[in-house]
């Protein structure tokens, strides 16, 4: 959207605020859920490949996993789903799952351990972007036949390359890539050895509560009930997700009753719904963090005291209470709240005196030129401008380098930025997902090319902290593991070139009669099957 159109939207919001609208005339059927959402990021429904937000929303409702989260009790963590139980060997390297009975795919085929073997193997063999979630346990294309094995229809055995915390492994299996696919259906649609990959891009073959009946890219996804679903029959027999880009349009539809849920409301539109009858707004803490990071190849920014000064010169509360109000809450640790071991302490606040004192202690008496690399998205631009202002008060000459997401990311991965302002969301619901990128970089050389690690992108070499991060993923005592992450985050807050600022709050507008809408919290995606109206 151009600046001109944003101004027009703001003017429109003002107009709406002063206009009394006719009460809603429409209403969706009681067994149907209609959602407005931005779903133009869906590229595929294949759990071995899907790695986008809207895709994860579909996948969670279509594919069951060996272990999964109860949407009405996310804090409880993972629990049994297709696997009714699991055992870990004494050496901690072999996990044996016992399959639950009574689960059936939409095709009518019964779910067996062979399907689980097929699904996890194909995720490794296809080697798509999310495959690292499984391959980090030592599974490779060469060894999957020995390391992922269904000994019969009821038992699945995973052999890891070394002992890991059981919670780490099981948390990873709750990710989208852990979705169990109907082997028979997938292989019936195999083309050129793709294990059904092409077909599964646009079709689904799961045992979850729903199946995708129709998908029009950038337009809509239609989900109908899986008649063979093993669980309680969902109240919503049909779910339609429409791609509606504009917040104002979503709001109009919601007020009219043409949709049940609006998922991309701007703060202005959320505020506008406050006095509307028949509509409510539900806040939910999500996993995305907003942060800035300093490239350690920049001599000035490699000085820890300069970075500390910048952390003190960031107006966390000012931003979260103004243009980010309701959308983000301050969080200064690399784990989002609600994750195991998430640190709640916020040692930094906007304090120009402390900022100046830290700068004076640095080897750079005066702050020099700083370029903030930021993508062209309104909330990020607003944050960048706030940093430009407050860091400017510290004496820094801040320039904003605005680009598309891809341009900004290119510079970041090439380690060519000064300051990168961006967001990071967890890949799977285990603390290692963020620890393994914010606090892990064993080889800081350019040749290492570890572009997936945020610490590497910022040229921050941390061999010792990397060891601590690795130690945390093999600790099987959950309390001890939690403490390790708490310690790691405290240290990270002090010494890292990362200025973690905020955690996302998702504000979903919905009709007052919609109950149990759970967007997925910080750990998972939306669950339509528990919703009632």
């Amino acid at each position, binding site marked *: 959207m151009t600046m001109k159109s944003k101004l027009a*939207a703001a003017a*429109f919001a003002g107009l709406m605020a002063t206009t009394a609208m006719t009460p809603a005339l429409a209403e969706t059927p009681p067994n149907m859920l209609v959602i407005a959402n931005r779903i133009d990021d869906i590229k595929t429904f294949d759990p071995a490949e899907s790695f986008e937000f809207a895709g994860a929303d579909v996948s969670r409702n279509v594919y069951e996993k060996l272990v999964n989260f109860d949407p009405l009790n996310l804090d409880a963590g993972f629990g049994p789903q297709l696997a009714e139980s699991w055992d870990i060997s004494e050496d901690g390297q072999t996990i044996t799952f016992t399959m639950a009975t009574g689960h059936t795919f939409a095709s009518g085929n019964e779910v067996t351990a062979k399907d689980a073997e097929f699904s996890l193997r194909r995720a490794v063999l296809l080697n798509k*972007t999310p495959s690292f979630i499984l391959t980090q346990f030592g599974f490779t294309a060469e060894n999957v036949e020995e390391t992922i094995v269904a000994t019969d229809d009821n038992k699945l055995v995973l052999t890891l390359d070394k002992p890991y915390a059981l919670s780490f492994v099981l948390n990873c299996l709750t990710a989208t890539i852990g979705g169990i696919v109907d082997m028979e259906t997938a292989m019936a649609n195999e083309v050129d050895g793709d294990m059904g990959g092409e077909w599964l891009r646009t079709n689904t073959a799961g045992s979850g509560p729903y199946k995708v009946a129709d998908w029009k890219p950038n337009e809509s996804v*239609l989900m109908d009930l899986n008649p063979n679903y093993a669980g309680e029959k969902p109240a919503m027999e049909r779910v339609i997700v429409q791609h509606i880009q504009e917040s104002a349009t979503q709001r109009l539809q919601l007020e009219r009753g043409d949709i049940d849920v609006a998922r991309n409301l701007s703060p202005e539109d959320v505020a506008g719904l406050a006095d509307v009858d028949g509509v409510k707004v539900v806040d939910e803490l999500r996993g995305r963090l907003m942060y800035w990071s300093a490239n350690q190849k920049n001599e000035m920014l490699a000085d820890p005291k300069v970075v500390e000064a910048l952390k003190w010169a960031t107006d966390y509360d000012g931003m979260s209470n103004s243009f980010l109000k309701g959308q983000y809450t301050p969080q200064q640790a690399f784990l989002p709240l609600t994750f195991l071991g998430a640190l709640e302490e916020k040692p930094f606040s906007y304090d120009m005196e402390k900022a100046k004192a830290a700068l004076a202690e640095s080897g750079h008496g005066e702050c020099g030129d700083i370029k903030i690399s930021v993508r062209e998205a309104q909330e990020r631009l607003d944050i960048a401008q706030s940093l430009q202002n407050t860091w400017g008060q510290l004496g820094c000459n801040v320039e904003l380098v605005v680009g598309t997401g891809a341009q900004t990311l290119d510079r970041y991965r090439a380690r060519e930025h000064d300051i990168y302002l961006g967001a990071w969301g967890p890949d799977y619901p285990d603390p290692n997902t963020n620890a393994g990128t914010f606090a892990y970089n064993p080889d800081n050389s350019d040749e290492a090319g570890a572009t997936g690690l945020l610490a590497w992108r910022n040229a921050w070499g941390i061999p010792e902290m990397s060891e601590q991060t690795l130690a945390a993923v093999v600790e099987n005592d959950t309390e001890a593991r939690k403490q390790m992450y708490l310690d790691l985050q405290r240290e990270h807050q002090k010494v890292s070139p990362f200025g973690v600022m905020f955690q996302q709050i998702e504000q979903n507008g919905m009709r007052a009669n919609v109950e149990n809408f759970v967007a997925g919290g910080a750990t998972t995606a939306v669950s339509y099957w528990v919703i009632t109206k």
Partner: protein
Amino acid sequence: MTQTTLTAARRAPMASGWPKKLATTLLTVAVTLLGLLFVTFMIGRVMPIDPVLAVIGERATQAQYDETFRQLGLDKPLLVQFGIYVGDVLQGDFGKSIRTGQQVSTDIARVFPATLELATLGTLMGVFLGVPLGVVAAVYRGSWIDQIARLIGLIGYSMPIFWLGLVGLLVFYGMLDWVEGPGRLGVFYQGIVPTRTGLLLVDSLIAGDMTVFKDAFGHIILPASLLGYFSLAYISRMTRSFMLEQLSAEYVTTARVKGLSEWQVVWGHAFRNIRIQLVTVIALAYANLLEGSVLTEIIFAWPGIGQYITTSLLANDMNSVLGGTVVIGTIFVCLNIFSDLLYRVFDPRSK
């Protein structure tokens, strides 16, 4: 010589010239499209963004990056890449969209009819209202009708379409409930009518389903009116300008002196002489709408080609951008050819 042979003899030069002209036209079209493809392709390749990341995302490993780099053919020289691409296009293969995971041709076949339907309705509104308004404004120059026509034109030029669209939705959908909401069809009507042309109004008529037709019409009427208004503003303004020029010409005075009625003077003489210019104006207005009115498509959640190309460009999905560009380029060329043909109909001298 009989009448028949005389006619044949007269037609002979035209007949012999016709294939040559067709060949020239086709060659021009081919060169234009090739040039268009080349420029777009090169822009896509020299843009400072990485097409591989667009495919695999930022979390991929270096090995996955390298593999995708090779799969996309990016390890080959630019000209070779272009040659391969043109070869594929000639076989009807625009490649796969990295954003939707589907063939670009499939995507375009889905989104273009949406734009075609919207633009056609918008242009028809613009022509049927804009042309008479422009003529009347010129005839009654300086009168209140003229002032109103000029005001309509001025508003059409200066009002942001984004704002006008949102206000239109608020008033006619939100408050008055005269029209349907965003999208092409209500959620309860989707999939009822089989897709034949992709034009929902036409498909529902073919199927004889007036309920679906009514719903589709309720969805399209507001965005089409909005586009029609902007076309109207342009067309009426240009029509007025052309007519003023003609009405001050001596032949018009002569016609009036000869005692012809004002209707005959205006429509029979002056208007006849602006038809050629009007064809160009209307063709341009139509082509602009066919390019896709991105903002209108976003506000009304209209899954058209404008939104498709823009979103693809932002995602660096160059196969989609190139495919869409070829379609738009072809439309422009076809409209140009169509305009030329109409010139020949309206102006015998051009034959």
